[in-house]
């Protein structure tokens, strides 16, 4: 009696990080788009379905890995390099032009921003945008999460996300 209970307890801890939720139900997919932004466009409330699912886009290794795959596939590197920034701002220096909370990053990806950030609402489905947002937050995170992805099989340009911080945060705001 005790042993199964203990096992179940242990299971809950690792459960969130390792499950592979392969299929997003259509109602959940629709609900994922329902963020509520603050009037100034920065920050807001995430859709309740995210916390109902256990916040997978922050804590689930597979979702973060999918986000990393999307980062490569949709050529984020073209402007942001591996996070160090090129024509677009750096994502790893600890400075966030519009804020670093998940809702803001979702909004940036979904609707785009002036000066060159494209809108991805017609290129990615809502759960993909959340995956990418979760990944971008691990890029800029100060400590390596256990669930964060590791290096890609390509030319090394910075430490793996699981070995964060990727770069020492700047003490002054970036020039661009």
């Amino acid at each position, binding site marked *: 009696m005790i042993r199964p209970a203990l096992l179940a307890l242990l299971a809950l801890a690792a459960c969130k990080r390792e499950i592979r939720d392969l299929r997003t139900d259509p109602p959940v997919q629709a609900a994922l788009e329902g963020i509520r932004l603050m009037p100034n466009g920065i920050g807001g409330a995430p859709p309740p379905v995210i916390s109902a699912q256990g916040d997978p886009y922050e804590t689930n290794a597979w979702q973060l890995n999918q986000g990393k795959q999307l980062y490569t596939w949709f050529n984020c590197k073209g402007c942001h390099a591996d996070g160090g920034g090129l024509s677009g701002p750096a994502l790893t220096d600890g400075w966030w032009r519009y804020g670093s909370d998940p809702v803001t990053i979702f909004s940036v990806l979904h609707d785009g921003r002036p000066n060159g950030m494209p809108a991805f609402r017609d290129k990615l*489905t809502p759960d993909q945008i959340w995956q990418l947002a979760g990944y971008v937050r691990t890029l800029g995170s100060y400590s390596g999460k256990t669930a964060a992805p590791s290096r890609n*099989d390509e030319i090394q340009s910075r430490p793996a996300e699981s070995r964060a911080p990727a770069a020492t945060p700047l003490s002054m705001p970036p020039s661009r």
Partner: protein
Amino acid sequence: MHWQSVLEPQGPQAAHLHWLIVVFFGVCAAVWLLVMLVLLLGLLRRRPAPVPPLPANPASERRAGVIVGSAVGATVLVISALTVLSAVTTHAISADPSDPLLVQIRGHMWWWEITYEGDRPDHAFITANELHVPVGRTIQLELSADDVIHSFWVPNLAGKMDLIPGRDNQLSFSADHAGLYRGQCSQFCGLEHAHMALFVVAEDPAAFERWRASQIAEAAQAATPEQARGRDVFASRQCAACHTIRGTPANGNIGPDLTHVGGRAWVGAGLLPTTRGSLAAWIADPQGVKPGTNMPMVPLGADELKDVSAYLAALK
């Protein structure tokens, strides 16, 4: 249609391998039968067991030694013969091809990207999951992988060769008869390794050239208003971000090239036969039929789904 069998060779390479398999089976079966016979004889000659163990009889020990020694010698001969046979077969199937047709195959999780070079740069084209070859001509495949190790295997035509990231492998084969041959990835490559099939369509050279010309051409124009709506949905929604349809604005290069998807026999790397309905089913719920696939569930309305599936099914 020949369903992916080693035992039904349809090309010279597979035929050599089939012959080798038959010979090996014959020799090995004979050896096994012989061993079982001797075992049976030894058991049938049982007599009541003496309580103290038997003393050794030098004469029968010597005779047994001679027999065992001869058996070992025979084993050496058989092994050597089989090794030589194996080397002969390797040599036979790797004869230098003349005027091969060059095709590049790149393995993705979980589909096959197939590139025909052609004699001019504008005669190159990319397709997916279906390899057309002219009968009788040697096909030389350049195999590479985009992500993890896959393996190209069409048993009716040839043995398998792995697609390894960071390495370029080659495989040559030819088909003797026109027909449709199924192959499957045979190196575990993740969640949907089980559903990574491909088809080789062998056709006579004239038919092959017609097919090639049609593939080089751009996508068919929308013929009905429904297809036109479908084309617009495709271009404006998430579809165009991942897929290419040459002749339209859609030029994504993450998923398979869909320029002539309606003309392919199967959808989803051998998952469903291509029909308008199966295309709709695939788009409506890819994770339902192929859980783990990288294609997301694009939120389309019912009418949009109808239109897009009509458009894609018409892209022959």
